[in-house]
């Protein structure tokens, strides 16, 4: 494999504590190395910013609900198609881009690893076919567990070991990566026309509470010692006053400690926290509770969060929180799709326009920015848009601009129709913090990589790590004249390397790289009871046989990379 040396760039690497020093980064055989030979190809990064490839911790980019959005929103592709260009195949879609466009867009912004945040186990094969067709970036998928009948039955009886054995089996057959929980119990209740809006609402028939599900799944996650923590979208998303449910959920992690060999310190990851930090009793007195939520997270080191920034775009919401999407279509009257996934989960899809002229949308925008500005430890707060729910991932450079420039935030606040309401219902107007490039590298690289248990592999530039490197046309020595320059610089990289292969040059795709599917192979003690329960459920309830369930072989996972866990 070729050797490269990225010369004279301003390097930001939290893994090694490098804060913008001029440094050369050497690449050999797909890894970062101390030095390379004189024949190495030189990339001139003078007056440029160099970071590790960014790591996306939560996005909906592959699988049946993403595709449902693509199918029922032809208008999303209307004026957003890009023709074949050089290496690039044609692509389309603004909020739900095609698989190829997804890979290209992430790579052009310097992202090299991305997590698909909700895989319905029954449709793992579909998820992996889309991951396979998304070029360049390494991907992994989180199967959803929070409404799964096996989990509900085992945790009803506090059977942590059986839950863990089931998780290990499911991760293996679906080539999954982590334990994802969406509206625990609530989506199952939705099958009965109900919901769970607090952590103590009982799930119909199963007679278990969301609190028992969450606590049990954390314990099972740590019993196995998985790379990532339990990753949760709590109950009561998106409703005024939901922050109390969020705090009740976070408290379930109290006293729990991370046990794993991957360097992860958290036991709970609260995703798209913006949607879970609302106060008020209705849309009229709707207000930010970002302070209450971040105060709690700042104090409790075993919790990590991501933001879920509203980008003020027209987008497509999609979640395994079926009842929420039904609620949303009742609010905006736009088209609604709903799917039940037998025994496991459900999903809903509704288009949504975050309009700067609607006060609720503007307040949501402010909350999404308050959270990272109020978080003391950037290693525990990651930037996401919960793509495509709060906005498309292609807007990350714009979110960075708002975080890095108080002036850019002020410009946006002044452009809101209900500016006064935004200022009275949030504290965005009083926050003058500007996220530094080093903090940005923590929030988009080192932090998410550590939280995912990938800290030794990616998210940093230390010798021995994967050579995922992004070079931006951004000179940190020069004061930012216009905040728009930040957005422009982070939109298109000067150069990107993925596992030592140059994939982007001057903003254009130059290689499809060597994309991998990451998954977790957890070994547990033989558990005949769980194996018997699984085959029984397939015979009694599933509409397919167990033989057709597994995502196996080259067709689904052509280039797998397994993280090995031994819990025997």
């Amino acid at each position, binding site marked *: 494999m070729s050797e490269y040396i990225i010369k004279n760039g301003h390097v930001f690497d939290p893994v090694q504590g490098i804060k913008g020093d001029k440094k050369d980064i050497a690449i050999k055989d797909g890894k970062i190395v101390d030095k390379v030979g004189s024949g190495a190809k030189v990339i001139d990064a003078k007056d440029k910013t160099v970071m590790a490839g960014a790591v996306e911790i939560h996005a909906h980019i592959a699988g049946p609900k993403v595709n449902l959005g693509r199918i*029922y*929103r*032809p*208008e*999303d592709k*209307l004026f957003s198609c890009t023709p074949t260009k050089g290496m690039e195949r044609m692509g389309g879609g603004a909020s739900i881009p095609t698989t190829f466009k997804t890979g290209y867009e992430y790579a052009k912004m310097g992202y090299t690893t991305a997590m698909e945040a909700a895989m319905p186990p029954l449709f793992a094969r579909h998820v992996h076919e889309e991951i396979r067709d998304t070029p360049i970036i390494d991907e992994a998928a989180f199967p959803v567990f929070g409404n799964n009948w096996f989990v509900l039955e085992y945790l009803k009886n506090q059977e942590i070991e059986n839950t863990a054995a089931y998780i290990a089996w499911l991760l293996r057959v679906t080539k999954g990566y982590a334990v994802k929980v969406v509206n625990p119990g609530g989506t199952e209740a939705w099958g009965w026309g109900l919901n769970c809006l607090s952590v103590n609402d009982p799930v119909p028939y199963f007679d278990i509470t969301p609190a028992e599900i969450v606590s049990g799944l954390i314990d099972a996650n740590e019993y196995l010692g998985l790379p990532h923590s339990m990753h949760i979208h709590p109950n009561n998303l998106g409703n005024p006053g939901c922050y109390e449910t969020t705090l009740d959920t976070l408290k379930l992690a109290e006293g729990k400690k991370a046990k794993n060999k991957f360097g992860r310190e958290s036991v709970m990851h609260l995703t798209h926290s913006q949607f879970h930090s609302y106060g008020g009793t209705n849309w009229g007195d709707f207000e930010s509770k970002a302070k209450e939520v971040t105060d709690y997270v700042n104090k409790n080191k075993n919790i990590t969060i991501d933001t879920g920034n509203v980008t003020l775009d027209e987008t497509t919401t999609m979640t395994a929180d079926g009842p929420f999407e039904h609620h949303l279509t009742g609010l905006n*009257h*736009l*088209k609604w799709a709903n799917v039940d996934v037998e025994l496991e989960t459900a999903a809903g899809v509704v288009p949504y326009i975050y309009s700067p002229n609607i006060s609720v949308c503007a307040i949501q925008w402010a909350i999404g920015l308050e959270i990272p500005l109020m978080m003391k430890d950037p290693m525990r707060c990651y930037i996401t848009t919960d793509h495509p729910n709060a906005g498309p991932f292609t807007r990350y450079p714009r979110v960075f601009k708002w975080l890095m420039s108080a002036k850019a935030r002020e410009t946006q606040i002044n452009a809101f129709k209900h500016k006064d309401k935004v200022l009275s219902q949030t504290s965005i107007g009083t926050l003058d913090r500007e996220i530094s490039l080093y903090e940005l590298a923590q929030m988009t690289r080192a932090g998410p990589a550590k939280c995912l248990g990938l800290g030794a592999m990616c998210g940093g530039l230390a010798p021995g790590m994967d050579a995922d490197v992004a070079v931006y046309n951004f000179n940190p020595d020069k004061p930012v004249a216009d905040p728009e320059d930040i957005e422009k610089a982070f939109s298109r990289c000067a150069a990107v390397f993925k596992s030592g292969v140059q994939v982007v040059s001057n903003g254009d795709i130059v290689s499809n790289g060597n994309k991998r599917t990451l998954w977790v192979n957890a070994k547990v003690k033989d558990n005949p009871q769980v194996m018997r329960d699984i085959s029984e459920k397939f015979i009694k309830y599933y509409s397919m046989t167990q033989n057709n369930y597994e995502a196996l072989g080259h067709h689904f996972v052509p280039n797998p990379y397994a993280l090995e866990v031994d819990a025997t």
Partner: protein
Amino acid sequence: METVTITMKNAPALYLEADNVSPDAFAGKKAAQIAELSVHEGNTTSTLGKYFDVSGDAGATAADTKVVVRGDVKKVKYLGFKMTAGELVIEGTADQYVGAWMKGGKILAKGDIGAFAATAMKGGELTVEGNAGNYLGAAYRGDWRGMSGGKILVKGNAGSDIGMYMLGGEIIVNGNADVHVMTHAEGGKTIIKGNAASKLGGQMVEGTIFVFGSIEVMMPGFKPNGEVELEVDGTKAKFAHFIGDMGERHKKKKGVVVYGNLYKKI
């Protein structure tokens, strides 16, 4: 106002997507530059000049530019696409998407036009001396934002699904209209001076339909609401009033529920 005349000289074998034929795209350009604008035939991109003779230079702005399209353009789509000002005259019969996404200016089509004309139109005027196809003034496939402003006059007949998801503006059809009129509409007005077929105002939330002739089949979701004397587009007459679609949600304005209105001349 300067006039640019484009005349078909080599008719395309496939359908031609001419989304650059508008006062906006031509504005500020000489004839030779206009001939260099791109068009798409199938998956091949080439120049306007390959298919059309271009004569005359455009005005400095769209408002100062009149475009005249001559010759056989039966296989040409997107004439007047996204135009905001100026004038476009189509002397023959054109294919789909005439005046689609237009915001201003005037289009005069002397022949017939195909489907999806004035898709999501926001303003301006479209006059059709012949017949219009299906989905006139409708929303794009999957979208919920149809025509929201401007005025369409069809002197002949219109096809099916006119004014689908309409939000505002006005459509007048001097002849007959086929099935589905203002389906899902939340505003706007459609006047059919001839006969209407069936399914008028299905799932209509708000908006108004007038029919001067007969209605083949009424929607079951519309309820009789008495008779009224009205003047509609210069015609004074008595109309039977219906409100609906009763199966759809309706907003309240000042405590009163607002329905879609259907008026049929008696």
